[in-house]
Each structure stands twice: as structure tokens, then as C-alpha cells.
């Protein structure tokens, strides 16, 4: 298990490094922040001073070296917009997105396991066809449009839910959660269903049935345990994709999460904040991938032995 974990950590760390380096270089290509933050009337001396103060006058490799050195000491620089430390801003926004994404994945996985298993229990039944149609639609709805429709129907026409913001009771969560939920749910239902149809026709399920195990035990005790591996893989990838959704949802509903923070800092060339946000997101995704691998190994003993290259 230890050697399995070590190998997985090393191979998952490679993308992490590339992402951090890539965003650093790309952000430098978006233009010099000096033009955006100083007035047009600024003298060349003021410009040079501003550049020197934030290290923009060094060459890109030198800037990168400084950045890595500072990051190792947990110093992520200050925001050009607000003057606050970048890490404080990112850490403030992060829990909002994490709560939203965590809740979404939990509901999506549990819901999909239930609906997908029900659909797979009797293929081509009414339940199965309904689940198929719903999940295909859910997986193909544009999320920003779904969010707007939610606002139009429940926020404006019926006036049941707030149209944006985070202030208030649990009702502020409904629309953002629903928007973020539809795509992972739709995809996962289809994965669970496909995987369960296979598992339910396996010999060990016939044995369990003939021994008199009841339907619940056969489905959730025997078949689901064997069918869960592909679901886990897809759920992990979908969780990465949730960052895409978070950008849209947080923009539409005005949530102060990390997706909105990243979009805003790109648009305003707030490099320090962007890099800190990307680093944290990349580390989270890295941890998530390791978690998925560990779950795989715990569920399936074959994975522990056959370590992928």
C-alpha cells in the first residue's frame, strides 16, 4: 500500500508542477499590470518604481524563481487591487467554493447511486427509460442557462428563492447547488446504470439471489460494491470539472468563491491572487486524485498490486 501510494503521489505531482508553471508564464503574457493600475499621466519614474516594487521589471525566469522561493516560505505576495495578502484573499474565498462543491458531489454521487441502481435493476422498464431521458437531458443542459431559468422561475416569477448573494438561510443554497448538480448527476446516473447492469448479470449475483438474499442486499451489498470503481473514477474527474461550473455559478449568483476570484483577477491582471488561487486549486485537485486512488485501492485489492506506471 505504501509503495502504491508513493508511486501515485509522484505521478500525480507532475501535472501539478506543469499547471503552476503554465499559469505563471501565461499570466505574464497577459500584459504589464503597470498600464492598468497607474494613471495615464504617470511619469516614467513612477512606472519604474511601481514595476520595481512588485518585481515586474525582472525577467520572467527571475520572477519565477522569486515566486517559488517566496511560495516556499508561504509568502504569496499582495493583491494589486486591494493590497491585502493574496493568500488571505484566496483562503477567504476557498471555503465558499469548497462547501458548494463538496455538497454538490455528495448529493450527485448519492442520488446517482440510488437512481442508477433503480434504473439498472430492471433494464428497459419505465423507471429505466425515464432515468435515461432525465440523465441525458441533465448532462446536456448549459449550466449558465439553467441558472438563469432558475432565477426567472423561482426568483422572479414565484418569488420563492433569492436571486443572488450568500446572505440568508438555507434557501440561498438551492439554486447554486441545483445548477452545479445537474451535469455531474446526469453523467453519474448513466455511469452507475451501465456499471450496475453489468454487475447485476454477473455469476456472483445469481449465487447471492439463489441463496435467498433479498433484493436490497443483492443490489447494494453485492453488485454495487463491484460496480463502484468506474463511478469513483468518473466522480473524481467530474469534481475537477466542478471548478468550471463554480466559475459560472459564482458569476451568475454573485458568490464570493474562488471561481469568481480567479476570473476577476485575470481580468484585472492581479497576478499574485491568480497564482495563489490556481496553486490552491491545483493542490486540491492533486489531493482529490490521491484520495480517489486510495479509495480505489481500498475497494479493489487488484489495484493495490498492479501499480500503474
Amino acid at each position: 500500500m505504501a509503495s502504491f501510494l508513493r508511486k501515485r503521489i509522484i505521478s500525480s505531482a507532475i501535472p501539478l508542477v506543469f499547471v503552476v508553471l503554465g499559469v505563471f508564464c501565461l499570466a505574464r503574457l497577459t500584459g504589464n499590470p503597470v498600464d492598468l493600475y497607474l494613471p495615464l499621466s504617470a511619469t516614467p519614474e513612477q512606472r519604474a518604481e511601481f514595476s520595481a516594487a512588485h518585481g515586474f521589471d525582472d525577467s520572467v525566469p527571475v520572477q519565477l524563481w522569486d515566486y517559488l522561493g517566496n511560495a516556499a516560505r508561504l509568502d504569496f505576495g499582495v493583491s494589486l487591487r486591494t493590497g491585502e495578502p493574496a493568500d488571505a484573499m484566496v483562503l477567504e474565498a476557498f471555503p465558499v467554493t469548497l462547501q458548494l462543491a463538496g455538497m454538490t458531489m455528495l448529493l450527485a454521487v448519492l442520488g446517482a447511486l440510488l437512481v442508477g441502481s433503480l434504473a439498472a435493476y430492471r433494464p428497459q422498464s419505465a423507471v429505466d427509460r425515464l432515468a435515461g431521458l432525465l440523465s441525458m437531458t441533465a448532462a446536456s443542459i448549459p449550466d449558465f442557462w439553467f441558472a438563469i431559468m432558475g432565477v426567472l422561475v423561482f426568483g422572479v416569477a414565484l418569488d420563492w428563492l433569492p436571486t443572488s448573494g450568500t446572505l440568508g438561510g438555507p434557501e440561498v443554497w438551492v439554486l447554486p447547488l441545483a445548477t452545479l448538480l445537474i451535469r455531474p448527476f446526469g453523467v453519474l446516473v448513466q455511469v452507475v446504470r451501465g456499471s450496475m447492469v453489468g454487475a447485476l448479470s454477473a455469476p456472483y449475483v445469481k449465487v447471492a439471489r439463489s441463496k435467498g438474499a433479498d433484493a436490497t442486499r443483492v443490489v447494494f451489498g453485492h453488485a454495487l460494491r463491484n460496480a463502484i470503481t468506474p463511478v469513483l473514477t468518473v466522480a473524481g474527474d467530474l469534481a475537477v470539472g466542478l471548478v468550471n461550473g463554480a466559475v459560472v455559478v459564482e458569476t451568475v449568483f454573485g458568490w464570493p468563491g474562488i471561481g469568481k476570484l480567479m476570473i476577476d483577477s485575470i481580468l484585472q491582471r492581479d497576478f499574485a491572487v491568480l497564482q495563489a488561487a490556481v496553486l490552491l486549486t491545483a493542490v486540491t485537485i492533486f489531493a482529490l486524485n490521491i484520495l480517489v486512488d486510495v479509495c480505489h485501492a481500498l475497494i479493489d485489492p487488484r489495484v493495490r498490486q498492479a501499480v500503474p506506471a
Partner: protein
Amino acid sequence: MSAPDDRTSPAATSPRTRPPRWWRLLGRDRGAAAAAVVLALVFLVALFGRLFLGDRAVRQDLRASLRPPSLDHGFYGLLGTDVLGRSVLARLVDAAATTLSIAVPAVLCSLLIGSALGLWAGYHGGMRENVAMRVADVILSFPSLLIAVVVLYVFTPSAMNIVLILAVARIPVYLRTARAEAAELRSRLFVDAARTFGTPASAIIRRHLLPIALPTLLTVATLDFCFVMLTESSLSFLGIGIQPPEVSWGLMVAQGRQYLQTAWWIAVLPGLAIMLTTVSATVLAAWVRLATDPGQRWRLTLPRKRRGERAAVPPEMIA
């Protein structure tokens, strides 16, 4: 499954074993047939719609501002007008062409490059396979929308750049699928035989691996078409995709958003158009997967009542 043998002349295949014509199969599945019709219509409108439009998608008429959908104002007033009095129907048609002119090239590029790399990596194995898979991991492990945002901010958001980014972001999907197929096929007997005869690797990949992997890759491409369309729409919605005066469905939703309470049709209709197209592509992809799989095709030729389960969506479709 038998090995595809390029030495067999077409005449040697007896007509009895020929698979049923695809349009017959399609006709038997009402859902898939409807999806195919919708997609065909969308493509026709995108291809030829602009010929009939003239300047109707951009012509402003402030007296006709925010007209609701009605039958009173001729064909182009059918779906109402936006705040500048432009016909929503005409703009939907115009946007269809823009949206597809991004989605189709992006899907084709990633399909071609990803499949070629994947088959190559999977067939050769070893170091080449490792490197290709690591590259795929790097691309996939980062949210595509965010990369697109950064890149589109550096290079101006032109249609060309959006196509490039979407193509690069989706290459790993085909690469992984093709590699898995090739890695499985390379130890089959017919590949061994071809290798023993001294067939060069490129010919083995082209003649022996590609025909078998192609149905799967095409299915993935159909599903990926949805994803690419949705991403382009999201980018345009966020204001970093298609820029006015050009128009795409996602951009129309964004423009209609501020008139949501007074003129719902501006934002609702383009969203419906996106959804109709993507759902049709998903339904059709499910059908293609059945129809191109010799082991599953019988489900489509049987009467409706006796058909078994459909294969579920493969993990490749995920974002």
C-alpha cells in the same frame, strides 16, 4: 469479432452477412431518429440559413424594440425582437452558424490528433505510451474553462483561438480512448500476423487498428460535440468567447439576461436551441454506440418490446 483483412475483395463478402443499412436501424428507434432529424435541421440551418437572412440579424429598428413572439409581424417577428428591434429568429439562425463553425472544427481537430497519437502510443507502448499519457493527464487535470479564460485573455478571443483551445483541451479524451483500444488490440493474433509479415507499424495502425477503434472514437466525438458546444457557450456567456457584433447562442443568453423580467424570450430561446442540439447529440451518440457494436446491434433489429438494456455512457464523455 473477425480481423479486418484488406486482402479480401469486396465481392467475397456475401450479401447475407452484410449488416443492415444504418438508416433502417435508425428508423426503428424513434428517439434516435428524432434526434438525427433535429441535428440535421440544425446543420442545414447553420449551412444555408445565412443565405436567406440578408442583414436581418443586425438590422436595428428601435420602433420594434422588445416585441414578444407573435404571428403579427411576419416570419422574422415570429420569435420576437431584442432591445434594438433585431429579429430573434434571424439572430438564432446567424448564431447557429457561428456556434457550429467553432464546435465542428474543434471536434474534428481533437478527434484527428488525439486518435492518431493515441493509436500510435498504444501500439508502441513503453516510453511513448507513458509520455503521451502523462501529457494527457496534465491537460485533463486542469479545469478547461480556466485555461481557456487565461489563454483567451492573452490572445484575443477570436473564433480561431477558441477552436484551438477547445481542440487542445479535448485531445486527451480521444488520446486515452484510442490508446486503450490500441493497447488491447496490439497483442491480438491478426496484428501479430501482420507484424510477422513485415508490415510497417504505420500500416498496421492505419489498416488493422483504426477500423476497429473508429466506431468507439466516433461515438466519443458525438458526445464531445456537446461538451465543446457547452464550453463555447459558457465562454461566450462569460464575455470571453465570441465578441459582438458576431453572435453565438451563449452570447445571446448573456445579452438577454438583463431583460429577463421584461422580455424572457431573448434569453430563453437561445438556451433552448443549445439544449435541443446537445440533447439530440447525446441521444444519437447512445444510438451510434449500439449500431456500431456488432455484439449489441441485434438490440436495434429486434421488435421494441424485446430489446434489452442500452449500453450506458462510457467514462470518456465526462468533462
